[in-house]
């Protein structure tokens, strides 16, 4: 299974196996990763699963809806901002590293 590393603001990290087809948000929730709220459960409706992609070249592009929601994140949008509910895990995304922002609401 491809691995994803979730890094917190204090530098601590958790690396977990993410089933292909799961979103980065789902994997975070089901592994008790702090700082991913995902109030809407993955509907691209709340912008509370924001992450910064530190290392990961092969991500799907940002669709219009995600791009709009990224304008509304609680922590500042940066060029590497994504909504973790919109990134579905693929085999070639192994080694992905994401940083969790300081706040989601």
């Amino acid at each position, binding site marked *: 299974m491809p691995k994803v590393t979730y890094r917190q603001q204090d530098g601590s990290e958790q690396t977990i196996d993410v089933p292909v087809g*799961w979103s980065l948000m*789902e994997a975070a*929730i*089901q*592994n*008790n990763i702090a700082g991913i709220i995902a*109030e*809407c*459960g*993955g*509907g*691209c*409706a709340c*912008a509370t699963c924001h992450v910064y992609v530190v290392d990961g070249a092969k991500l799907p592009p940002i669709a219009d*809806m995600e791009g*709009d*929601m990224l*304008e*509304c994140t609680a922590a500042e949008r940066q060029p590497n901002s994504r909504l973790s509910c919109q990134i579905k895990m693929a085999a070639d995304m192994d080694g992905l590293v994401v940083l969790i922002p300081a706040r989601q609401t």
Partner: protein
Amino acid sequence: MTGKAPIIVIGAGQSGQQICDSLRKGGYEGHLMLLGDEASLPYQRPPLSKKFLTGTLEAERLLLRPASYYEQQKIDVHLNARVDSIDRAACRLRLRSGEALAYSGLALATGTRIRPLTVPGAADANIHYVRSLADGERLAAALKNARRVAVIGGGFIGLEVAAIAREQGREVVLIEAFERLMARAVAPQVSAFYAELHRGHGVEVLLGTGVDAIRTVAGEHTVVTSTGAEYTVDLIVAGIGVVPNSELAEAAGLACRNGIVVDDCARTSDPLIVAAGDCTWHMNGFLQREIRLESVQNAVDQAKSAAASLLGQSSVYCQVPWFWSDQYDIKLQIAGIGMPHDQAVLRGDVSSGAFSVCYFRDGVLVGVDSLNKPAEHMAARKLLAQGTPLSAAQAGDTSVDLMQLARGA
């Protein structure tokens, strides 16, 4: 806290889970018990009428938190546990199993249950509803084998189910008693857009049409409408609303009125008992009136106030209500409560499938429906929360950037 009776949360849905989480985050270290009458740990309900019905989303992916979370947080979860009565004088619950549990604080997050269809023949028609995970699993399986589906009720649930059924290639007739869709929630132009959307996808949409009776013969159901038309289908789904589960509270002598009555801090009339989520008739700090809301937002935000009240703090529940619905490729997001209103202003072009409708009452913005306009939805939530003035003229002018306005730019 050692030796003290636990805080008990009744209801293992989104609100019950949030109350437990907020109690722990708020510093409560004592015994915490979560009682649920279903077989599953707390899960998300919204996908049950959406993606879950396609059968591509496993039930474990709906869990709000994994089992390990409850162990880590020392939350004592009891599933398949039904509470029969609350003895407030003795601070004790009695479970269906006969067990008695003492509490030091109590949270009621009992949610709602479906309103059943009661027309003649309904009891024999194996009607599907969407409320629990078990309902969703049963409906997902039935949809696989169905050819023709009748959906009774043109609210969020019925429309979402109709959309999924069409996407799976089923023939769908949707029967709505009112003259327009989602009439309780949105303006006529939004209702009209959705009627066209569903018709465009091949749903037969019947408005202003009731169901008089259902006849079931050999697994086939014939729905007889108020206009005398008959539709023979092999699956019926009804989404005609829910009723709050307030009987337990009522029997315990707590005030109930279309739900369990709570103040703006989620407190009942008993200082040891709070309530949150779909089951409450509450004083809404944002709306400044009493209301019952059925939504994730309400379940989560009111739960935070309920937990604070149990910890002896007061945290007024004052959040902008928001809702969403996914149908086909259109995401409807609602900010605030647009009903009732005296002016509805269209923002954008309906034919583009991406627009908003802004609702005003006495010249004040009270709600915004956004269709595939998530940024406008988020801006609307901010504008409403801040009370930033917005005129009807500004609302209708797409050159006015709502987010910039919300940010004071």
